[in-house]
C-alpha cells in the first residue's frame, strides 16, 4: 500500500505553465477575495436578509424569486436568500474547524511516528493503512452514520477522515528531516527529544501541510454538504447548503430551480475560493523549489 498518497485527488503535483510569481499571486488574491466575501456574508447574514433563516412565511411556500422573497421561498415557506447566507456560517465553520483539527491531530501523530520509529511507527501506520483502505467519502459516510449528525460530530467525522493523510505526509517529511545534520547537531548539543520535535521537526515538516490544507477545506465543504444531502448532516431546519439542496430535490423534477440552485452555487463559489487559494500556494511552492 506504499503508493496511496493523500486521499484527495487534489494532491497531484501541478506543474504549471507560468513560472513567475505573478500568476500564483493572482490566484491567491482571487481565491482569498472570494473567501473574504463569503466570510463577510456569513458574519453579516442577519443584516443582509429580511427574514430569519428558519422563519416561516405562511402565505408564501414555493414563492418564485422576486417580490417578498429575493430568491423565492422553499417548500416550508422559508426564505432562500436568508438561508443561503446563514448556511455559510455552518458550512465554512465546520469545514475550517474540521481541517484545523485534522492538521493538529495528523501532524502530532506523523511527528511521533516519523521521529520515534519502531513500534510506535508500526502501530500508527497500520491504523493509517486501515483508514486509507477506503475512499474518503465512503469513510466519512460510515463514520457520520455511526456517530450521528450535529455540528461537533460533523467536525469530528471530517477531521477523523482527513487526519491520516496528514499523518502520512508529516511522517514522510520528518523521516527525511531526521537524517539532516542539524538534527544530529542538536542531539549532540544535548537537546531533548521533545525539544527537537517541537523546535526543529515541527516547523520544517509543516511546509507541505500549508499547501494541502486550503484544498482540503474545499473538499471538507463538499463532504459536509454531501453528508447533509443524504440526511446525515445537520438537523433538518438548520440552514446548511447540502440539506437545502436536498430539500429542493423534488422541486427540480417539477422545474422549480430556486430552492436548490442558489445553495449549490454558493457552495461551488466557496469551494472554488479554496481551490484557487490552494492552487496559488502550490504554484508558489513549486516555483520556489526550482
Amino acid at each position: 500500500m506504499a503508493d496511496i498518497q493523500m486521499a484527495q485527488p487534489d494532491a497531484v503535483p501541478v506543474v504549471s505553465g507560468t513560472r513567475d510569481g505573478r500568476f500564483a499571486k493572482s490566484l491567491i488574491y482571487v481565491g482569498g477575495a472570494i473567501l473574504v466575501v463569503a466570510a463577510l456574508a456569513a458574519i453579516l447574514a442577519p443584516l443582509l436578509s429580511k427574514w430569519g433563516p428558519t422563519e416561516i412565511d405562511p402565505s408564501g411556500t414555493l414563492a418564485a424569486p422576486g417580490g417578498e422573497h429575493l430568491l423565492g421561498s422553499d417548500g416550508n415557506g422559508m426564505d432562500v436568500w436568508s438561508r443561503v447566507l446563514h448556511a455559510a456560517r455552518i458550512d465554512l465553520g465546520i469545514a475550517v474547524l474540521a481541517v484545523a483539527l485534522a492538521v493538529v491531530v495528523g501532524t502530532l501523530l506523523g511527528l511521533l511516528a516519523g521521529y520515534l520509529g519502531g513500534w510506535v511507527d508500526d502501530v500508527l501506520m497500520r491504523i493509517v493503512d486501515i483508514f486509507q483502505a477506503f475512499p474518503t467519502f465512503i469513510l466519512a459516510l460510515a463514520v457520520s452514520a455511526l456517530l450521528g449528525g450535529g455540528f461537533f460530530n460533523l467536525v469530528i467525522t471530517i477531521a477523523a477522515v482527513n487526519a491520516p493523510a496528514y499523518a502520512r505526509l508529516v511522517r514522510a517529511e520528518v523521516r527525511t528531516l531526521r537524517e539532516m545534520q542539524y538534527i544530529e547537531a542538536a542531539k549532540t548539543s544535548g537537546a531533548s527529544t521533545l525539544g527537537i520535535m517541537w523546535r526543529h521537526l515541527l516547523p520544517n515538516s509543516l511546509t507541505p501541510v500549508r499547501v494541502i490544507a486550503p484544498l482540503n477545506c474545499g473538499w471538507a465543504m463538499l463532504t459536509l454538504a454531501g453528508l447533509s444531502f443524504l440526511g446525515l448532516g445537520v438537523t433538518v431546519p438548520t440552514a446548511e447548503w447540502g440539506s437545502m439542496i436536498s430539500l429542493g430535490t423534488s422541486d427540480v423534477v417539477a422545474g422549480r430551480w430556486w430552492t436548490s440552485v442558489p445553495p449549490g452555487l454558493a457552495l461551488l463559489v466557496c469551494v472554488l475560493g479554496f481551490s484557487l487559494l490552494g492552487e496559488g500556494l502550490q504554484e508558489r511552492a513549486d516555483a520556489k523549489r526550482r
Partner: protein
Amino acid sequence: MRILRFVGRRLLQLIPVLLGVVVLTFLLVRVLPGDPIRSILGPNATEADAEAARVRFGLDQPIWKQFLDYLGGLVTGDFGTSIQSGASVTGEMALRLGPTLELVVIAVTIAIVLAIWLGIWSARRADRAGDHTVRIFALFGNSIPEFWLGLVLILVGYAALGWFPAPSGRVDPDTNLTPLTGADLVDALITGNGPAISSAAAHLVLPVLTLVIGVLAPLLRSVRASALEVLRSEAYAAAAAHGLPERTLLRGYLRRATLVRLPSLAALVFGTALGSTVLIEYVYSWQGFGQWALRGLLYRDYPVVQASVLIIAFAYVLIFLIADVVHAWLDPRVKI
C-alpha cells in the same frame, strides 16, 4: 514470474489491513448507538418480540461468539442475513453491484480517455487561450458538488428540455428486460432487447455525465502536468531537434511517457467515483450498491454494513494493486 511474486507479496500485505477492517467494522457498528432490531419491529412491539428477533439473528450470543460465526461465514463467502429484508446479504449484494459498476466503469473509462486527449492537447498549448480554458474547466470540475450538478442536469435535461427520462430508475419497465448481471445496458445487449438498449442508454446519460465531470478534473490536471514535464525534458527536446515527424513525437514520446502516472491516479479516481456514486445514485434513484449500503448504515443492519464496508475496502485496495502492476508494465524503469 516476478510480477506474480510481487502480486503474491502484496496480497499477503493486504491480509492484516482487511482483517483490521473486519474487526473494526464489526466492533464499531455494535458499540455505537442504534439498534437494528427496534427499526424492524415497529413501535408496538413488546420486549419479548424484540428478544425473539434477537435470537433469530443471533444477536443474543456473546460478542466473541458472534464474531467467530461472522468470520466462519466470511471464509465460505456467506455474509449473513440482512436484518431489514431477511434475505441473504451475499445475494442482495450481487444484485446491487451490477448497476453501480455499470455507472462507475463507463464514467471512469470516458473520463480517462477524455483526460488523456484533452490533457495532452492543453499541455501542447501551454499558457494559450485553449489551455487556460481547460485549466479553468478543471478548477470548476474540482470544486463542483456532484450531487448538485446532477440536479442541475436533471433541471436542464429533463425538466426544461425533456431530452432525457425522469430520474427514477435505470430502464423503462415496459421493455420487459430480463435481469442477468444487474447492469441493465449489458443485460439488454446480451438478450438483444432493442427497446431496452435504448431505454437503458438514455437513463445512463445524465448520471454518467455527472460522474464524468466530477472525476475528469483531477485526471486532466495530472495528465497535463506530466505532459508538460515530458515536453520540457531533454529527451523530448533532443528528439524534436532531430526532426522526428510530429506523429512519432506525439505517439512515441509524448503519449506513452505521459501515461506513466495515470494508473495510480486512475485507481484513486475509481475510489472517488465509488464514493460519489452514493450521492449520484441517490439523486437519480439508481438502485445500486451505494443506496443499499446507505440504507444498511442508516438502519444499523449489521450484516449489510459489515459486508458493504469490507467489499469497498477490498475493491479499493485491489484496484491499487492492479494500478501498480499496470504501472510496472507500462514503465520499464519500474522494478517490482
